[in-house]
């Protein structure tokens, strides 16, 4: 299944290939543009590897079902876009609270509300981190090519299994629907969760603040709840220390491991005066513009977070003292702006483009030239 070799496929299909390669055995979803192709591909591929596919009655049911399936021990995923992603927020918090590994692919489209259903946008970045109520952390990945739809979906499963968190692959309609070469390698690194053999084991956290996960049907008498609970699952909503230690650990297991999770691509940053930061679809013309600017003798550099949350905070802080200006081309009025502005402050020239279209190399190059004057 998904044999090694070269393919020419669209991004959504590559994500489905990645999921199958990662060992996903359960998918529940609901049709939505521009993510339906992932759902359709999973419907076709999963039975062939002995996996289960369900089309549910809505997106709330879809994320509920994949959390249930994850507790039965299966790697589980759903795929959606803005409106469906909004509906899933409560249970993303539930997955974080119960430390359930799941993967959610959000193929972003232009919002708010129904917006432009088939046009790309990057407006879900803050939602992907803060969309559910209360304090929690997720991991959010940002593919910018068909290859990365494959690679980062696999990585999403590995991270979900390692840290027992919901992991979001934040794609967009451009990357999801584009067709490019995909190379499926011979060997793919796959991480499987540590399965607890006793209830006691589920209460012992390693240095990453993660404990082995129980599995329904193994006789552990698991008590899983979205209410505040002690390490053994016992609900305890009245003791301040229980809430404090639980929520701090949920946040710290990402914070403490962030240097292992952070991932980015960079180019020409050593001597850059002007740093272009971009992610997802808009990072493609951004990189092209930086290469063109260099040819014109402008000292431009390029930074692309492949993991948006946790952000490459330390690297950005290192670069902050050397660069004079930072340009952030993205398909949203807000997008990643707050995170970049937090570090580069007055040096940031935000370059939002809304309308459901990707900024062009020319547009970004023009901005770089202006910044270099």
């Amino acid at each position, binding site marked *: 299944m998904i044999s090694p070799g070269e393919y020419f496929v669209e991004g959504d299909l590559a994500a489905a290939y990645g999921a199958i390669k990662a060992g996903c055995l359960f998918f529940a979803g609901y049709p939505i543009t521009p993510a339906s192709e992932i759902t359709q591909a999973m419907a076709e591929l999963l039975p062939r590897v002995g996996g*289960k596919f369900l089309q549910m009655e809505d997106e709330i049911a879809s994320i509920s079902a994949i959390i249930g399936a994850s507790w039965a021990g299966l790697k589980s995923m759903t795929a959606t876009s803005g409106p469906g992603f909004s509906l899933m927020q409560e*249970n993303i918090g539930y997955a974080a609270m119960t430390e359930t590994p799941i993967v959610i692919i959000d193929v972003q489209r232009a919002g708010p509300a129904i917006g432009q259903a088939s046009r790309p946008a990057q407006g879900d970045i803050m939602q992907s981190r803060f969309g559910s109520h209360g304090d929690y952390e997720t991991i959010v990945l940002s593919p910018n090519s068909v290859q990365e739809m494959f690679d980062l979906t696999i990585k999403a499963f590995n991270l979900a299994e390692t840290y027992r968190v919901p992991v979001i692959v934040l794609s967009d309609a451009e990357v999801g629907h584009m067709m490019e070469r995909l190379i499926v390698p011979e060997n793919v690194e796959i991480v499987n969760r540590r399965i607890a053999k006793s209830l006691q084991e589920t209460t012992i956290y390693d240095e990453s603040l993660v404990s082995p996960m129980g599995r329904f049907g193994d006789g552990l008498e698991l008590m899983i709840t*979205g209410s505040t609970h002690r390490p053994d699952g016992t609900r305890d909503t009245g003791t301040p220390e229980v809430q404090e230690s639980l929520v701090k650990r949920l946040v710290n297991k990402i914070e403490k491991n962030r240097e292992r999770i952070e991932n980015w691509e960079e180019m020409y940053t050593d001597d850059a005066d002007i740093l272009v930061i971009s992610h997802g679809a808009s990072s493609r013309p951004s990189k092209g513009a930086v290469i063109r600017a260099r040819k014109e003798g402008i000292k431009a550099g390029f930074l692309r977070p492949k993991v948006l949350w946790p952000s490459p905070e330390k690297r950005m802080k290192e670069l902050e003292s050397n660069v004079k200006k930072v340009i952030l081309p993205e398909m949203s009025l807000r997008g990643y702006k707050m995170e970049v502005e937090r570090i580069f402050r007055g040096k940031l020239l935000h370059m939002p483009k809304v309308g459901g279209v990707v900024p062009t190399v020319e547009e970004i190059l023009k901005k770089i030239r202006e910044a270099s004057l």
Partner: protein
Amino acid sequence: MITSRYIKENYVRRLPSAFCPGCGDGQILNAIIRAIDHLKIDRKDVAAVSGIGCSAWIPSPYLRVDSLHTTHGRPIAFATGLKVANPRLKVIVVSGDGDATGIGGNHLLHAARSNVGITVIMVNNGLYAMTGGQVAPTTPHEAKTTTTPYGNPAFSLDVSRVVAAAGASYVARWTTWHMNQLIRSIEKAIMKKGFSFIEVLSQCPTYEGRMLNMDHIQMLEWFKNKFREDADGIYKIGEFVDIEKPELTEELEKMIERVKK
């Protein structure tokens, strides 16, 4: 003979419970335990799923099996994923009337339609009790609740009939007065291949009783006198559906075998 000590030692995580004095939830916990015990199913093969509300606490924390205490209205959707992922499990959802038919009504309909082999025990006390006695989809017309202080202007849902129409394999309605029938019914529901649904009218002395000016004994007597197999509408109890038809997880397994060839 099942003694209370036997039940506590084998099936209950801890007591005393947090239920109000006179609440029907303890009786329903008792009925579920007796059904599992009669069937001699290994506890590790049973999974309980619940949402939010008083009745969600029947399995979590009290029933000593793997339990998933989920978000409000969604236990049936979580249970569907769990069952499909591991068909060996006997998955029992315990849900209130607000949880199952208000916020979660969509999931109930579709679980019945797809005939997924889980059991839903819906505890119906006619209002939202945990949040303070507000009107529910099951509250009778003109009944007073904390959010219908002048009487309910809307009308109630006959849930069992809706679930039967949606395609469930087994549907029954009992009250907490009809304990023996309820236990036998839960046994049948657990062993039923397809989607099984049991509605249990249960007393909430704290909110429902206050509004009706009845204590829990009077409410049980009301169940005894008013709810009969030959009664009409919501007062009709008994088995409404008991059929065999293809079940979702089995159909999926068959499809996988076909496709893998």
